[in-house]
C-alpha cells in the first residue's frame, strides 16, 4: 500500500485528495472506515466532508470507526498523518491533536479562498516552504473555528503550522475568517508528523482552478511519505 485516504460514510473530498496526490506523482488508495488493517501505508489522509453526517458533534462518531485504531497506531509511530477540514476535526476528537473545532464565529458556512502564512516548516505539511510564505487556499467549513484552551503551566505551546492573514501577511481579528484562536489555520503535534489543516490544499493544485499554492503543501506531505519504510 501507499498513501491511505480514509473514507467514512459522509466523507466527500476523498476523490479530490486522491486526484491531487496523483497529480503530484503519488499514489493513494481509498480505505473504507471499517477496514482495520492499514499495514503498509506510508501515509494517512483523513479528507474533508461530513463523516457520519457530523451527527452528535463533528468527528465525534468518526473517531470510533474501526479504522481509527489503525490510524492512531500509525500516527503515534510517526507515519505522516494529514487531516484536512473534517479530517482535522477527527484528529482533534481522537486526541491526536490538541484543541477542538467549533462553529465559525459568524455561525455561517464559509466558502472562499483565504490567505495563510507559513509559521513553521517543521511539519509534514510545510517542509518544502519557508516561514513567512503566503499561500492562497480555499477554506470551506462551518466548524472551522479552532479553539485551544489557554496553555496549562508546563504544557508545550502548540506547534502552529499556518495562520490566517491578509494579502500583506498581517494577522488579526479583521483577517481571521472564522474566529480561530490566534488565527490558527493548521496545527501539528510536537514531532510535526501529525497535521490538521482547515483550508483545503487539494483544491489549489491547478491554474485552471485559480490557485496552485496547495501543491507545495501536498508536495511536502508526499515527500515525507516517501521516506517512510512501510
Amino acid at each position, binding site marked *: 500500500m501507499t498513501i491511505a485516504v480514509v473514507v467514512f*460514510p*459522509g466523507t*466527500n*473530498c476523498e*476523490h*479530490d485528495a486522491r*486526484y*491531487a496526490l496523483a497529480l503530484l506523482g503519488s499514489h493513494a488508495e481509498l480505505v*473504507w472506515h471499517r477496514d482495520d488493517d492499514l499495514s503498509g501505508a506510508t501515509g494517512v489522509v483523513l479528507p474533508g*466532508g*461530513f463523516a*457520519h*453526517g*457530523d*451527527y452528535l458533534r463533528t468527528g465525534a462518531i468518526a473517531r470510533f470507526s474501526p479504522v481509527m485504531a489503525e490510524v492512531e497506531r500509525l500516527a503515534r509511530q510517526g507515519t505522516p498523518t494529514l487531516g484536512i477540514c473534517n479530517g482535522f476535526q477527527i484528529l482533534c476528537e481522537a486526541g491526536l491533536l490538541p484543541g477542538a473545532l467549533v462553529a465559525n464565529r459568524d455561525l*455561517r*458556512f*464559509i*466558502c*472562499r479562498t483565504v490567505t495563510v502564512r507559513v509559521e513553521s516548516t517543521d511539519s509534514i505539511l510545510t517542509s518544502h516552504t519557508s516561514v513567512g510564505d503566503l499561500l492562497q487556499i*480555499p477554506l*470551506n467549513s*462551518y466548524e472551522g473555528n479552532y479553539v485551544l484552551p489557554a496553555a496549562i503551566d508546563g504544557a508545550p505551546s502548540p506547534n502552529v503550522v499556518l495562520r490566517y492573514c491578509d494579502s500583506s501577511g498581517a494577522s488579526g481579528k479583521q483577517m481571521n475568517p472564522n474566529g480561530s484562536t490566534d488565527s490558527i489555520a493548521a496545527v501539528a503535534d510536537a514531532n510535526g508528523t501529525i497535521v490538521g489543516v482547515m483550508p*483545503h490544499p*487539494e*483544491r489549489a*493544485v*491547478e491554474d*485552471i*482552478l*485559480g490557485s496552485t499554492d496547495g501543491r507545495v503543501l501536498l508536495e511536502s506531505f508526499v515527500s515525507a511519505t516517501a521516506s517512510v519504510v512501510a
Partner: protein
Amino acid sequence: MTIQDKPDHQRLGMTDDEYDAVIDLLGRTPRTAELAMYSVMWSEHCSYKSSRVHLGKFRSDQPWVVVGPGENAGVVDLGDGWLAALRIESHNHPSFVEPHEGAATGVGGILRDIFTMGARPIALWDPLRFGPLDDPHNRYLLDGVVSGIAGYGNAVGVPTLGGEVEFADRFSRNPLVNVMALGLMKREQLVLSAASGVGNIAVLLGNATGRDGIGGASILASASFEAGDEEKRPNVQVGDPFEEKKLIEACLELYDRGLVVAIQDLGAAGISCATSETAGNGGMGMDVDIDAVHVREPGMTPGEILMSESQERMLAIVTPEHVEDVLAIAARWEIDASQIGTITDGPDLRVFAEGRLVAEVPAASLADDAPRYDRPYERPCYLNALWDSEPAIPDEIDVAKTLNLLLDDPAIGDRSWISSQYDHTLFLNTVIEPGHDGSLLRIKGTHKGMAVSTDGDSLRTYLDPRRGAARIVFESALNVAVTGAQPYALVDNLNFGNPENPEVMWQFVEATDGLAWACEELNVPVVGGNVSFYNQTDGVDIYPAPVVGMLGFCDPMPDRPPRLDRAEQGMGIWLIGQEASDDFSGSAYDRIINGTLRGRPLDVDGATARELIASVVEMAFDVPVLHDVSVGGLAVALAEIAFVSGTGFRVDDVSGRELFDETPLRVVAITHERDLETSVPRRRIGTMGGDQLGFGAAGSMDLSAARRIWADALPRRMR
C-alpha cells in the same frame, strides 16, 4: 366548513369531477389507499394537468438529445461517450412553510432525479425569489432558505455554483425556491425508469418510511395559500443529507456493476408514484407488499406508507439473481434495503397489506389517465394601463447618485453573502465560480467544459410574458457564451399563480410561447422542466416567473476563459451588440429610482441574437473580459468589472440614459487589443485604469467607496 368536515377526496385536494373519474375508471368506489394514490398522482404537481396541453410546443428532437422531457432528467451527449443530465425543480410552498427544511429537501429531491439517471450529481444552482428585505419575515425566509440549501448541499457533497435572486412584493407571501442540478456520466451508465421482466424484484433502498411529508405534493404544492396555513407544516418533509450521500454512492456502485434493470426515485407521492411510474412506463404491473417496507415507526396505515414523502429513498428493479448483490452493496454503504415488490405482466399495480389486497389499480392509469385541463385564458386587463404608460426617465441623469442607489439594491449588490455559504469548489471542476455571468466547469481528463446560467425576470415577464420569457432565454444564452460555451440545452421552471384564473393562464400560455420561440431561434432543445402553479397567497398571484437553466458546452474549453478579474489598467473597453434604444420597462432604474413598473419591454430579434452569441463564443477564446449587460445596464456592468478586478475605468461619450438603459443583447468586452475581431457592431467606449468609476461628463465615483456600498447591500440588510 373546517377541513375535517370535508369528504375524503376533497380533503386530499381532489375535485368532485376527478373523484367521479376515478370511480368510472375502476368501475367502483376507490378504497382508502387507492383514493390516496389517485389524489397525489393526479395532483397538479405530479400530473401537470393544467399545463400539459401547452408543453408540446417545446422542441427536444435535436440529435444531441439522448433523453428528452418525461424521464427524471434530460440527458444530452457531450461526445466521446460523455453524457450530461440536467433538471430543474421547485420547492416553493414547502420553503414558505418551513424555509430551512423546504429548501433542503428541494436539493435532495433534485439530486435523486440526477442519479436516478445513472449520473453523478456534480453541481447545483439555486434561483430564488423573495419579498423585499425590509420585512423581517422575508429576511427570515431568505436566511432559512440559504441555510437549508447550504446545510444539505454542502453536507451531501455536491457543490452549489450559484443561482440568482430577485426581490419583489408579490413574493412576500410566496417565495420561489427553485433548484437546478447537473450530473455527468459515461454513456454505459445511463439507466431509465421503465421496469421490465416479469418476476423481477423491486428493492426499496435508503431511508425508512415515516409519517413525514404525507400529502406534500397534493396539499402543499398544488393549492393556494391562505392565512393560517402553518397547519401545513407537518406536510413538509425533513431531509437527511447524510443518508442521501450514502444512497448516491450505493446507487452509483449498483450502476457500475450493472445490477439494476431500472430505477426510480421516490419523490412526490412516495411509493405509490414510484411503483406505478416504473411499472406503467414499462407497460408492466407490480405486486407490492406494504409489510416489507422498512418503516420508521409502527402503526402506520397502508395509505400512509404508500403516500409518505420520506426523503432519500430509491426503488430499484433487479433481476432475482442479482438481489443478493444489491443487498450486499446496500449493506456496505450502510443503507437499509427491502424487497417490496415483484414485476408482473400487468396491467395492475396491486398492493397488499397483511395479506389483504388494499389497492388494485391499472399502473399506467395513475400517470396516463390523469385529467388534462385546457383551462380558459384571457389577456389581463391590467396590461392596457401598463402598456399605455412609459417609465419616466429624465434626459439628464445624475449618474453617481443613481448608481449609488442601484448598487445598494440587494438584487444588484454583491451576492456573495449567499454564495459564500455554499461549497462551490468541491470536485475540482469549478473554473468559473459564483459572481460571474455563468458558471464554468471542466470535465477532468478531457478538454470539454460545461457552463450553466440560471435566469428569470419576473418583472419584465409581468409586463409582457411572451417577450419577458424570450429575453430570459437570450440572456441565459449570453451568460454561457461569455465563458466560451455554446448554448446547448435548457430546462425551465415555470412558476405561476393560480391556473384557474384565466389571466394567470394567459401569462402561462404567452410565456411558454416566448420560451419555445426563443429556444427554437437558438436551436436549443428543452430537455426538461417543471411547472409550479398555485403560487398565490390570500388571493394574490405572484408575478409570472419562468426561470430557465441553460447548459452551455464547449470542446475545447478556452485555456483561459474570460473572467471579470482579468481587467487591467490600460485595457480598452468595448460595447458589443445592439445600441441602447430606450428600454427602461422593467428596468432597475424604473424599479429603484422611480418606484414604478410600467411600459412594454423591447422585443428581441432572433437572428441578431444568434449572431451576437456566436461572436461572443468565439471572442471568449481571446478576450480576457466579457460581461453581459443586464440588470442596471451598462453602468452596473462596468462597476461590477471594476469591483471584482480592483481597477477603475473611464468611459466617454456615453450619456446617463444610455448607462442605465437595459436594451438586451449587449456585452462589454475588455482587452489590450487595438480592435476586436468580430463582425457584430462594436464601439470603443473607454479605458480601464485609476481608482474612479469615471463616466466622463456624466460624473464619477470613488471606486472603493462605491465598492463598499455594493459589497454591503445584502449583508447590511441581513445583520
